[in-house]
C-alpha cells in the first residue's frame, strides 16, 4: 500500500547511531533522494552476440539528497552554520511507515530563500553523501 508523505522528517546527528546532538530540520516541504545511480560500464566487443551492446555495473553514486524547507530565520541560520563549518553529519530521513534512509554527508548547497509574490519563503538544502546511504524497512 502506498505511504503518504505526511510526517516524513529529516534529522542529523554527530554519530551513525543518531544519539549525539540529534537535530530535526524544521518545516520540510519536500524531500528527494538519495538519487542512487550505478555507472554503466560498456563491455561491448566487436564479436558481441547479435550485435547487441553489453554492459556491466560500475561504481554507485548516491548523488544528492535535496530538501525544500519553509524559511524561518532561526532554521536557516542553524543550517548556515553547519554549511560554513563544512561538517560531515549523519543524516536520516524517516517516513510515515518508519522506514528510514540514512547516511553521512555534508551540506553541499544552501540556497538563498526563494521570495515569490504572495507566497511563503522557502529554501533548498542539498546534502552530498560522503559514503553510501542505506535504506531500512523499519
Amino acid at each position: 500500500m502506498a505511504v503518504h508523505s505526511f510526517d516524513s522528517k529529516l534529522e542529523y546527528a554527530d554519530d551513525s547511531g543518531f544519539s549525539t546532538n540529534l537535530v530535526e530540520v524544521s518545516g520540510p516541504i519536500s524531500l528527494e533522494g538519495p538519487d542512487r545511480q550505478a555507472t554503466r560500464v560498456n563491455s561491448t566487443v566487436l564479436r558481441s552476440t547479435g550485435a547487441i551492446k553489453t554492459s556491466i555495473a560500475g561504481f554507485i553514486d548516491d548523488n544528492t539528497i535535496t530538501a525544500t524547507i519553509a524559511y524561518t530565520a532561526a532554521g536557516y541560520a542553524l543550517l548556515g552554520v553547519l554549511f560554513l563549518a563544512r561538517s560531515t553529519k549523519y543524516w536520516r530521513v524517516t517516513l510515515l511507515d518508519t522506514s528510514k534512509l540514512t547516511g553521512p554527508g555534508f551540506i553541499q548547497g544552501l540556497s538563498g530563500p526563494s521570495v515569490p509574490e504572495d507566497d511563503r519563503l522557502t529554501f533548498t538544502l542539498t546534502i552530498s553523501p560522503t559514503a553510501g546511504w542505506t535504506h531500512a524497512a523499519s
Partner: protein
Amino acid sequence: MIEKGLYALLAGTSAVTAIVGTRIYPGKAAQNAGQRYVVYRRSFTEHRRNLRGSGSLKRATITVESFGANYNDAKTLAQAVYNAIGENGTSGVTWGGHAVRIARWEDETDEVIPPQMGDDAGVFSVLLDLVVWYAV
C-alpha cells in the same frame, strides 16, 4: 479565526466606531440595522502545510463591505475601514491573538442596491477584498 480578530480591530478603532457604533456584522447585517454599517465575510482560509503537518502560517481572504445611505457616506466609511486595517506589512501586529504578517488589499468595488419598493431608498456600498497572512 482571523475574522474574529478583524472584528476586534474594527470595533476597537475609534474612527470606525464613530461612524457605525457597534454595527459591525459577520455575514449579514442585523434586521433594520441603522445606517451606516459594516459587514465582513471570510471567503476561505488556506492552511500552509509542511511534511510534519499543518504549519502555523495561514492565508485568509476576507471581504469587508461598508454600507451607507448615499455614495459619499459609503465611501467615507470604507476609507475609515481601510485606514484601520492599513495597507502595508503589519509585522508585530496582532488581531485577536493572531500574529498578522501582512494585510494586503486585493480589490475595491462600488455597488448600489436599488430600491426594492416605493418607500425604500436603496443603499450604496463599497466592497474591500483583503488578504491576510497570519500565524496562529
